[in-house]
């Protein structure tokens, strides 16, 4: 049963924690991420003693990003800053790494793409340290087809807003 990306990520986190993982990484499966970035994220996490390493394409590099996607992501950054009060440069980047302690504080309840904002909310509430790590994102026809559409982003923002009102 496919409940959505958010539900799948939480299942992965829960599974990894049950198996005794010390670090947990999330990673989109559409080929847009650079696997070597994970190693740099791990090193930074250990060196700086943080609990969350969040990938940022705006600190790093992007290839073939359409301007509409750039605009949508920038709007998402400001929306998240306003709603969550967390100051990050890239809010919907699927590449992240966290310590076991950090992963234990993540409980995704929003099953679909809204989970990216929910994770940031929970990171902000946890009070644990997070760092942003420059990463590379490569947009291809496949990744753009699977990624967020602009209309879906508007629905996502509306759902997050409704969720905030219902809390």
């Amino acid at each position: 049963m496919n409940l959505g990306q958010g539900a799948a990520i939480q299942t992965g986190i829960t599974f990894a924690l049950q198996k005794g993982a010390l670090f947990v990484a999330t990673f989109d499966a559409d080929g847009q991420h650079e696997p070597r970035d994970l190693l740099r994220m791990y090193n930074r996490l250990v060196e700086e003693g943080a609990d969350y390493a969040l990938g940022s394409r705006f600190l790093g590099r992007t290839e073939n990003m359409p301007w509409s996607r750039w605009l949508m992501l920038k709007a998402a950054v400001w929306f998240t800053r306003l709603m969550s009060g967390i100051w990050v440069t890239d809010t919907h980047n699927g590449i992240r790494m966290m310590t076991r302690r950090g992963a234990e504080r993540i409980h995704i309840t929003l099953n679909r793409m809204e989970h990216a904002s929910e994770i940031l909310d929970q990171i902000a509430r946890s009070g644990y340290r997070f760092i942003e790590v420059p990463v590379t994102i490569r947009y291809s026809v496949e990744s753009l087809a699977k990624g967020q559409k602009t209309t879906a982003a508007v629905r996502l923002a509306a759902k997050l807003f409704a969720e905030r009102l219902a809390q």
Partner: protein
Amino acid sequence: MTLFQWTFGTLCALVALRHLFRIVRGDGSRLAGIFWGLLWTGAAVTIFRPGVTGELAALFGIGRGADLVMYLGLLAGIVVTRYFYSRTRRLENLIAELVRAEAIRHSKEPVIGS
């Protein structure tokens, strides 16, 4: 009295009576029976005596009875929407928990390098 008052007023009064009988018979939730009974009685009274809403509105400092009804309706709409939203989200989370538990139960150990 107008035809509307006779038709809908009587209908509301009958529904209110039905809830009253259900409370007396002990059918269903007593609290729900009282709530719906009062609501339908209120609707019947408002239809038979439209001036009542105006008098009530004046008590709250609102100009017209229709405005009071609209405000109350709006408030009820917000409360009901929030209630159903919360219920749907709870249900959604329960389903996700169930599916997650099943997925993990049937999972296989990852084989490195395969």
